[in-house]
């Protein structure tokens, strides 16, 4: 078991590394970023100021080659030549190029080398240059556009709570409702309840979350307000000022009730979406179990039907659901992005979209990394849980 966990953790780290490298490469070949703004600004007024461009490139490591840049971003190193016993090594290693062109390098020993770069950057030039502590120290660098010069982590701190609240609440509600619904519908197969349930669940899973959110706003925020009914807010997480809701009373801005009030619609949308597919899954898994011999045996020995269903059938039917839960984790992040965008909800997903649109790549990459990591941990947890709920399975 311990061996297995250690091995899995290594796999998780390796996968997170691959994802980080791929996203880093993608975003570093992308245009935009800090330089884009300078180009846009200066093309309006005068000619480009080469000094400013070079300063900005140095500031954001844009003059470095991909690999040293990635290493500095990931680990915070190299920060200069290698120092061993007062001796420094590799100071002459070229790690980047500030300006394209050609240059002649004259070494102290008289060698002359032609290189394809007018202003090469050497390892020794990196001494004293500001650098993050690296991803491994949980320092995701600084935001370049959204909140200039602020650490990415600070941006996340204000958002991650909102997202976890949204996702946690909706996941909890979905599980709490999906299990009894799915089981009831399987136990009463072909009844009217089952028929209505399967139809609704089918429609719910085929309906895009995007439109469900828009429809929710249309009905509960706009229409209800028009009609003078107790309405729900159309977006954001807290009101700017106290609001009077008909038949309900005043809601104080920033209070607990206010937060809940803002959560109702987005949580409902995410819940309905999950509910539709999860309860269908539980229904079919329960139907499968109800056909098994041990259920017939339990009935034959005269157990009460309730006991048969709860103790013998339900427990077994929920085993595959544990893996399903891990499998939907990646999708949860996608769903949260869309839902947060529709409701203008200040969470990680909307921050990610804002970062992509503004070209703030440090923020975008941090989002990808954090969500990848959480998803992988989720998978691991589901594997461990699997052994708990199903003693036939051993991890090795």
């Amino acid at each position, binding site marked *: 078991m311990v061996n297995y966990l250690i091995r899995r953790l290594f796999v998780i780290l390796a996968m997170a590394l691959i994802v980080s490298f791929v996203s880093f490469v993608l975003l570093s070949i992308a245009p935009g970023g800090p330089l884009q703004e300078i180009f846009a600004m200066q093309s309006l007024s005068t000619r480009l100021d080469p000094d400013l461009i070079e300063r900005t490139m140095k500031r954001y490591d844009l003059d470095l080659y991909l690999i040293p840049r990635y290493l500095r971003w990931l680990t915070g190193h190299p920060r200069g030549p290698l120092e061993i016993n007062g001796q420094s090594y590799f100071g002459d290693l070229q790690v980047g190029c500030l300006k394209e062109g050609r240059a002649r390098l004259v070494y102290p020993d008289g060698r002359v080398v032609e290189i394809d770069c007018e202003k090469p950057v050497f390892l020794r030039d990196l001494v004293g240059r500001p650098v993050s502590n690296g991803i491994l120290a949980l320092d995701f660098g600084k935001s370049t556009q959204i909140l200039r010069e602020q650490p990415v982590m600070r941006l996340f701190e204000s958002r991650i709570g909102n997202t976890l609240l949204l996702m946690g609440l909706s996941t909890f509600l979905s599980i709490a409702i999906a299990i009894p619904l799915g089981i009831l519908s399987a136990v009463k197969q072909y009844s009217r309840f089952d028929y209505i349930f399967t139809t609704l669940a089918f429609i719910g899973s085929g309906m895009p979350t995007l439109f469900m959110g828009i429809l929710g706003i249309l009905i509960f925020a706009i229409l209800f307000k028009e009609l003078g009914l107790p309405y729900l807010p159309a977006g954001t997480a807290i009101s700017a000022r106290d609001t009077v809701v008909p038949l309900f009373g005043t809601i104080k801005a920033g209070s607990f009730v206010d937060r809940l009030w803002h959560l109702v619609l987005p949580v409902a949308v995410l819940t309905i979406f999950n509910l539709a597919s999860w309860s269908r899954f539980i229904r079919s898994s329960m139907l499968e179990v109800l056909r098994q011999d041990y259920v017939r045996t339990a009935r034959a020995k005269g157990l009460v039907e309730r006991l048969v269903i709860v103790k013998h059938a339900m427990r077994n039917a929920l085993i595959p659901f544990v893996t399903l839960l891990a499998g939907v984790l990646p999708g949860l992040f996608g769903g949260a992005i869309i839902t947060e965008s529709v409701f203008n909800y200040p969470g990680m997903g909307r921050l990610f979209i804002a970062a992509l649109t503004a070209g703030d790549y440090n923020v975008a990459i941090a989002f*990808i990394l954090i969500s990848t990591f959480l998803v992988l941990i989720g998978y691991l947890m589901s594997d461990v849980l699997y052994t708990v709920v199903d003693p036939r399975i051993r991890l090795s």
Partner: protein
Amino acid sequence: MATATAAGVDIAAREPVALAKPEGQWTIVLRRFRRHRLAVFSLALIAVIFLASLIAPLIAPFSRDGVNPALRFSPPLTPSVEAGKIHILGTDHVGRDTFTRLLYAARITLSVAVTVATLSTLIGMTVGALAGYYRGMIDEALMRILEFMSSIPTFPILLILASVLNQDPRLLPFPDFLVNIISGIMLIDAQKESRSVLVVILVITIFGWTGAARLMRGMVLSVRERDFIESARALGANNLWIIGRHVVPNAFPPLIVAYTLSLAEGLTTEVALSFLGLGITDPTPTWGNMLNFSTQFMLTHPWAPLIPGIPVVLSSLAFNFIGDGLRDALDPRLKM
């Protein structure tokens, strides 16, 4: 009436029904599919939307990007005085005719969905069949890739890819013939608009083929051990023939169902991408970016998001229902 005549007629004089050629597999499937009313209705609905988008240039009352600054956010059925025509579904935030744009958008959104679904199913089928049939290294590699792709949050990565590729055309130049085909099918400007459509198709396909590959691999694994494969091999059939003639047709039914479902998925992914502003962007109309603009002005013009929203929901549900109907029709164990 019919029974009365039948009873009156001499049995010997009847048509020899029993001797007629037995029904083919697809006739049975068609007959069973027709019983699923919602699926048939969905198919008709999709056909109507497809047809409307096919003849969009003929039935569109206005030009696609024609702006009428005097008429912004006009409600449905607003007459346009100077043109002498009616804005059937009103106008959008800059005064373009919504109905016209909806038609062109249907053409783009649906063809993106069809292209994505077809490409990812074909790629998945090929990869899955090869891996399942040959096993060994190919299979091992495929399984690792599938495992990797199913355990990372694909949607954010898809968004990054789309946003990066859309920003700089030099990063990934598309061949001219592809650009021209796309601009021809979707009636869009080859130079300015085709690119973002191609990027969206490419990006969704990259993350979309895994489902079909997994399905195909599973089917091939279960089929390849069967006796008729062995006898085909004994008769001297080579691998390619066995895969093409025996393995693929046997794995076909679930693939068709998966194909219809991936149509729905392709559609919603494109809509989501364009809604978030990272897919196909204005002035190229798609249901997604029409939704994006109409929701921005939703508090003052609440009906606006419904116009692109309803077709999105209807076609997404319709593809799902068709898939459901096909699943029932193709399953021989299910008695109907």
